[in-house]
């Protein structure tokens, strides 16, 4: 028995790194004054505890599994020249720092924290200010990025990189971050099986969220507000987007959500409020849009004729200038069972479903689609008459694009 106990202890001490890990203190007033020095001293699995102060150490490279903890939010300053933290090892945790002024270079993509070829990286509770890229992760697995705040005061999108940038990664979790002022708030390219939850991306220069070739990802409860061009998602399949809020993305070709070549995805229970175009779709297939709220948008949905087999059901369309716009007459999508506040039909059998179908594309939408300036005549008596005439004898609008079972009352959607 004793021998067995001894063996267990020995094995634990030899292999279980955490048991024997030590903590190295970095303090401007202590013996170890720089983080670089601490990293050199540290063994894999050690914790480096950084005391308050301003650390100007150029490019700090983390090349072994370490836990870096900032106490009292120490500042890592890149002097506008360097990438501040570069991580090359797995099992690294960085938390509690304020990371400012990285170098600016579009050739090297300098970042506040850059990580290449890592596994189980954790970046938590940091503040980033005036970094070119905030967090730049490539070729990594199982990264967790949470509770960080990133902000930049750049004037144009050429002066700044993306807030949280992931490339060629898998199983990342991006949670409760706040990104503002960057080029793209969150940028994904070739990132799969990841979750993006509870983030707020506002007033970014280009897109709040931008992803391409990022299959099997989930986006929940994020807020995308007042971004330069809204949210753009492209060339991806099997994406789930739920409970997100897309708000006040205003301007010419600015979209709440731009879908381009997306297939087999779900857009459910989101809110689209006061966007110029809530959803713009191009080449989108087999995607389900349900239980979303479209309220006070310029256009609710702008569907290009290249989309097919999408279903829109149980959505609420309220106070939009135009509910639905399309550029073709062939109808390959189903839009049954939504609530449209412009519906004027009746319900004789009192089942809450309108007895006459609703055609959400009105004639003037088609005119505005061709001549944007014509929107100035919207809501004039003339346009009203034209629309009425068109409703009686559809000539311009796609006759078959209709909701066969429009709801008379808004769906009760608790989002």
């Amino acid at each position, binding site marked *: 028995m004793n021998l067995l106990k001894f063996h267990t202890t020995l094995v634990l001490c030899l292999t279980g790194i955490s048991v024997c890990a030590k903590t190295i203190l970095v303090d401007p007033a202590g013996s170890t004054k720089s983080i670089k020095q601490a990293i050199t001293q540290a063994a894999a699995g050690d914790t480096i505890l950084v005391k308050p102060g301003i650390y100007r150490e150029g490019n700090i490279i983390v090349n072994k599994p370490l836990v870096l903890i900032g106490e009292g939010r120490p500042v890592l300053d890149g002097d506008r020249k360097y990438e501040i933290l570069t991580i090359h090892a797995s099992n690294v945790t960085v938390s509690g720092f304020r990371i400012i002024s990285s170098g600016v270079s579009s050739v090297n993509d300098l970042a506040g924290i850059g990580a290449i070829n890592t596994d189980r990286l954790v970046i938590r509770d940091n503040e980033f200010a005036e970094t070119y890229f905030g967090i730049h992760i490539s070729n990594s697995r199982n990264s967790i990025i949470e509770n960080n705040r990133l902000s930049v005061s750049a004037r144009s999108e050429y002066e700044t990189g993306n807030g949280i940038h992931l490339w060629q990664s898998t199983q990342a979790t991006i949670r409760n971050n706040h990104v503002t002022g960057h080029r793209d708030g969150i940028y994904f390219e070739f990132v799969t099986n990841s979750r993006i939850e509870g983030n707020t991306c506002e007033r970014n220069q280009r897109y709040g969220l931008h992803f391409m070739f990022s299959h099997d990802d989930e986006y929940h409860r994020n807020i995308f507000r007042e971004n330069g061009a809204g949210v753009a998602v492209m060339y991806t399949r099997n994406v789930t987007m739920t409970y997100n809020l897309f708000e006040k993305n205003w301007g010419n070709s600015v979209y709440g959500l731009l879908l381009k070549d997306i297939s087999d995805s779900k857009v459910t229970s989101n809110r689209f409020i006061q966007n110029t175009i809530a959803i713009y779709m191009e080449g989108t297939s087999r995607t389900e849009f349900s239980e979303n709220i479209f309220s006070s948008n310029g256009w609710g949905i702008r569907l290009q004729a290249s989309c097919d087999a999408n279903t829109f059901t149980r959505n609420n369309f309220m106070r939009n200038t*135009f509910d639905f716009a399309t550029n073709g007459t062939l109808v390959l999508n189903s839009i049954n069972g939504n609530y449209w506040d412009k519906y004027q039909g009746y319900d004789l059998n009192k089942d809450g479903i309108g007895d006459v179908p609703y055609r959400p594309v009105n004639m003037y939408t088609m005119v505005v689609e061709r001549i944007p*300036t014509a929107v100035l005549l919207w809501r004039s008596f003339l346009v009203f008459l034209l629309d009425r005439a068109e409703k009686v004898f559809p000539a311009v609008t796609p006759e078959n694009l209709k909701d066969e079972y429009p709801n008379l009352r808004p769906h009760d959607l608790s989002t």
Partner: protein
Amino acid sequence: MTRVIKYVFYDILRTRFILLYTLFLLVSTIAMFQLDTDTGKVILSLMNIVLMVVPLVSIVFSTIHFFNSYEFIELLLAQPVNRKIIFLGEYFAVAFSLCFAFVAGVGLPMVLYGADASGFTLLYSGIMLTLVFVSLAFLSSVLTRDKAKAIGIALLFWFYFSLIYDGLLMWIIYTFMDYPLEKITLALVSLNPVDLARILMLLQLDISALMGYTGAFYKEFFGSNLGLIFSSLVLLVWIVIPVWGALRIFTKKDL
């Protein structure tokens, strides 16, 4: 002048038309608020009243009233009273009573049921349109001595601004769609008070769609208070110019 206004005002009240007009506005506004819980939609329906009914009633009523009080005006002219004062007295009395009817009929229920910024814009544009069309009515009244002709001119004004002008504008937009039309359409729109009031409302109700425009000029115009200031100023011009013209004709006219 206040005495002239007072007499004309009593005269207007005696015809009971203003009371009926107030009642009509009141009943339809309350009915709309009762039928629909969404304030935005109510404002939208009310907007159609403001853009169509209010100008029509204002211009027709003012014209008829002017001719009905022709004898009264002639009587006053026999007295040592300045023509200018008589004319402006008539104008202010009619304009005030119509504005009062509108505010009481639409504004009161709106305040009771709770209104937002778009509601107040609606009230504002309603008042402005009333004033503009009373001005136009006085102009058409002094242009001719024949009552039927004057009503005809008044109706033509209304038709022109509510329908024909937009038709022309649409034709221009269609014909020149390949050219940058932004500034031109905006200039053309300001040549029509009804369109201006409509754009004031669009700025409230459809701002998201208006922001979808090409060109920084539009973004600036719609995004800031510039649109509001610009359209208010132009509406003011639309009120003052016809009255001024009518006044000039009236003071020189052989009645």
